[in-house]
């Protein structure tokens, strides 16, 4: 189970996250929607301490970290229990697709090389890139790079996968294959927290949709309720804008 309590982040005095409380059940797929600059990405980045939260507590399984007191070891433990998929893929540019997926297994989890490689090859097959094992990121399409990015996150076996606008940097032609892969990850009951602007995808994949604005959760519920019967006028306005 994942629990976030009072998560707060300020940039230059302005609160980008305003005491966010959020619980995510094991296997739950939660999609965060909302206007740009409302703290959606910051929420994900704070959960992974890529941005250090100013206050709040993050609990992932047995690991519970208080933002104000978090030391280096706490942060590493939290990061190792989660996996992050970046908008711009964030693949290691000097390593092949296979090596990108193996890296965390070998360096962080200290698994034997042969075992890590076998697992990475299984994942390459799963993401449909078995033939690209030895390709470097620069020679892959955007869609392929993001699939490797997701594969790298899958390999870790994280309790929570964080997706930060995984299709926003992609040419439209590559969006479909990345969403397909995310569907198959979701089908394995992987706990996922996804920030996306793909509303149709959100409706289809989410167990719960969260609407954020101004660093707060304004409304949340099952997709049918959020998209078909929005209560808050801000959510109604937002949906009218994105569907227009």
């Amino acid at each position, binding site marked *: 189970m994942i629990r976030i309590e009072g998560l707060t982040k300020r940039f230059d005095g302005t609160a980008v996250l305003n005491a966010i409380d959020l619980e995510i059940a094991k296997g739950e797929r939660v999609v965060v929607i909302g206007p740009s600059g409302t703290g959606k990405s910051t929420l994900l980045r704070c959960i992974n*301490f890529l941005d250090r939260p100013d206050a709040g507590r993050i609990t992932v399984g047995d690991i519970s970290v208080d933002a104000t007191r978090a030391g280096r070891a706490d942060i590493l433990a939290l990061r190792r229990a989660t996996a992050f998929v970046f908008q711009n893929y*964030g693949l290691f540019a000097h390593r092949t697709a296979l090596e990108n997926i193996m*890296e965390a297994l070998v360096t962080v989890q200290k698994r034997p090389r042969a075992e890590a490689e076998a697992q990475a090859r299984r994942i390459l097959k799963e993401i449909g890139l078995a033939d690209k094992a030895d390709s470097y990121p620069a020679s892959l399409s955007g869609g392929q790079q993001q699939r490797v990015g997701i594969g790298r996150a899958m390999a870790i076996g994280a309790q929570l996968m964080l997706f930060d606008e995984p299709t926003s940097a992609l040419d439209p032609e590559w969006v479909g294959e990345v969403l397909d892969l995310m569907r198959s990850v979701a089908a394995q009951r992987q706990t996922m927290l996804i920030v996306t602007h793909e509303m149709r995808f959100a409706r289809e994949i989410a167990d719960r949709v969260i609407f954020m604005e101004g660093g707060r959760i304004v409304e949340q519920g099952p997709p049918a309720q959020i998209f078909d019967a929005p209560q808050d006028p801000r959510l109604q306005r937002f949906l009218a804008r994105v569907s227009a």
Partner: protein
Amino acid sequence: MLGLVPVILGYVPLTLAMASAAMVLALVLAVALAVERVFRVPVLDQLVLLFISFFRGTPLLVQLFLFYYGLPQVMSFLTAIDGVTAAIMGLTLHFAAYMAETIRAAIIGVDRSQWEAAQSIGMTQGQMMRRVILPQAARVAAPTLVNYFIDMIKGTSLAFTLGVTEMMGAAQKEAAGSFLYFEAFLVVAVIYWIMVEGLSQAQRALEIRLNKAYAR
């Protein structure tokens, strides 16, 4: 004149050994200095800045004289150091200061996404530097570092001034016996030139290798 060539060539191994030893030591020191400059450890940072400032701010020859002839007068344990060791140490410290700045710039130039990706999978700072940042910085820094190595090879000729018989010293002795000054120093110049040309070829091969991952 041709008789000079094998005599002076006989000192090529010494030149290459001094330059290689200094290069390896300087690289290690420069990476340490550069990483410190990136993370700015309090107190240490001021010392590193002072170190870089001094070794970039004074001529190599002056540094060599200061350490070989000067320092042993105040620190007697240094008298045991021979010219070759002193030259290697001097070259190491001098070039480490320059190389540290090159490496620091290359580290900072590694895209932010690479740092974040390394952090997100739970790497420690040391793992991140070793596995992700430094290998990518190396590619950017390599051409400049090879340039410094070239400079270093030529810099070994200053060991002559510390009483080391290297290529220059040998040429000087040969010339003094035969009065073939032009020939002797011409041979030295040509040998240096050939060594550096060989290194330039190696540099091209190295760059192709380091750029392998970035070919589209």
